[in-house]
């Protein structure tokens, strides 16, 4: 089987609008969560989030094209451009039918839906913008990326709630490994920080009004973020042959379904995904230095995730570093796995383990080394990235230093 490597990375999120800025913020343990700013926010009971600040679409796109781009597509396109630039690729190299794109998103053009509904329901108008459908469709970001770089191979979007990005990256990895494609752009994007989007989330009563504190005994819920991460994945030999800089190798992926509850996670389903990724990568728990946790900061997730890690890692669970970067960039839902993959690259490439900030009190149910509050220097050779979605759909990636 072919080996699969990452040769480019790009991101837009509340911490920064590029990878170096995001690495710096993660190393500093900076928090991107603040007061939300959009119409009608005062009618929400939760008014904090990790919103991208100072976003200037005109700086990135021509006006004619912008009419087709919901914010989630804008974030994805900017992240893809950064990733392709780092990979040194103006477009698909070689046969363009051997390159494709898989993008995760949960809400797709949720902001476009919100605006259109406001127009017809609240403002009583009888027409919406003519491009409402091409803006809101879940595959819009994927399609615009493929158009931008002439990627003519397998391309589609994946919607598995909070696991969307990991599923997208994992599927792209499997396609290259299996020989179905030579290279793929993969990642995820999300933007549902708008009145309708957050009002829906409020209903579940799982969000914190005062901050995201994963694994801390006083955690009281998740905090929403937004943003995108996009990566260039290539066949190892192909990347070597063209002299590309290799950022890391993706060497394992597993996906499972709890087949249990629509919102409550199961430790067994999560454990099967973690074990599956280790097996796929040929790794033993002892070899894994860092796990980027799903770590949402809800009562249910964090406890379940720790139980799953303990179940798979056994005694090695006491040695592995586990952090949730959601306390910094918020829960970017369908884009979150892609933003979190950056913490894995930071660990493998720079030897910096991003912390779990806002840790105030140990929770006996979350008794792992959660790298509280301050980043740590450590050489790690293999890492995992967890994603466990509402609906019980789990996806875990394994990466290694090359």
């Amino acid at each position, binding site marked *: 089987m072919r080996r699969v490597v990452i040769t480019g990375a790009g991101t837009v999120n509340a911490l920064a609008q590029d990878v170096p800025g995001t690495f710096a913020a993660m190393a500093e343990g900076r928090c991107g969560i603040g007061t939300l700013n959009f119409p009608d926010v005062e009618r929400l009971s939760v008014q904090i989030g990790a919103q991208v600040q100072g976003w200037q679409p005109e700086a990135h796109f021509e006006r004619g094209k912008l009419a087709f781009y919901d914010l989630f597509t804008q974030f994805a396109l900017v992240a893809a451009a950064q990733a392709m630039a780092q990979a040194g690729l103006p477009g698909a190299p070689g046969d363009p039918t051997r390159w494709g794109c898989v993008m995760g998103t949960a809400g797709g053009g949720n902001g476009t839906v919100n605006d259109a509904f406001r127009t017809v329901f609240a403002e009583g108008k009888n027409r919406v913008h003519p491009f409402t459908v091409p803006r809101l469709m879940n595959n819009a970001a994927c399609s615009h990326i493929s158009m931008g770089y002439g990627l003519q191979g397998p391309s589609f979007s994946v919607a598995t709630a909070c696991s969307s990005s990991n599923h997208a990256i994992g599927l792209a990895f499997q396609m290259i490994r299996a020989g179905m494609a030579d290279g793929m752009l993969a990642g995820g994007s999300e933007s549902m920080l708008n009145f309708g989007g957050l009002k829906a989330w409020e209903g*579940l*009563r*799982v969000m*914190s009004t005062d901050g995201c504190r994963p694994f801390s005994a006083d955690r*009281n819920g998740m905090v929403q973020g937004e943003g995108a991460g996009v990566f260039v994945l290539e066949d190892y030999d192909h990347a070597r042959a063209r002299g590309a800089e290799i950022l890391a190798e993706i060497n394992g992926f597993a996906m499972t379904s709890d087949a249990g509850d629509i919102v*409550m996670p199961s430790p067994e389903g999560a454990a099967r995904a973690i074990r599956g990724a280790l097996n796929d990568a040929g790794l033993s728990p002892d070899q894994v230095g860092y796990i980027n946790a799903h770590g949402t900061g*809800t*009562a249910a997730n964090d406890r379940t995730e720790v139980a799953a890690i303990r179940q798979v890692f056994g005694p090695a669970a006491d040695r592995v570093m586990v952090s949730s970067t959601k306390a910094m960039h918020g829960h970017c839902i369908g884009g979150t796995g892609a933003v979190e993959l950056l913490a894995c690259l930071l660990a493998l490439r720079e030897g910096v383990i991003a912390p779990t900030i806002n840790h105030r009190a140990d929770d006996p149910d979350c008794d792992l080394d959660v790298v509280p509050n301050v980043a740590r220097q450590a050489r790690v050779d293999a890492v995992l990235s967890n994603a466990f979605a509402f609906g019980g759909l789990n996806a875990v990636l394994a990466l290694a230093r090359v």
Partner: protein
Amino acid sequence: MRPDVQDQIISIIAREAVLEPAEVHPDMTLDELGLDSLGLVEMIFAIEEAFNISVPFNANEPSQSDFDISSVGAIVRAVERMIAGPAPAAA
């Protein structure tokens, strides 16, 4: 307790718990009624809609809430207090 408020709440809880209202008594806990966390969130939503109130409740820390859900009767009393409006602030 105001009987009308109590009857209305019992009928909401009974619907969520898939029971007859006659089977729901003020001294029963939500556990005894077999309400899971989603059922609880739906119940609170139905109470908010029925009485036009806003119930402070975070599923991550149900016991921290000002809204007492320790029994059916406690819920009725909490709703009655909310309908009556906030207590006068101390000077």
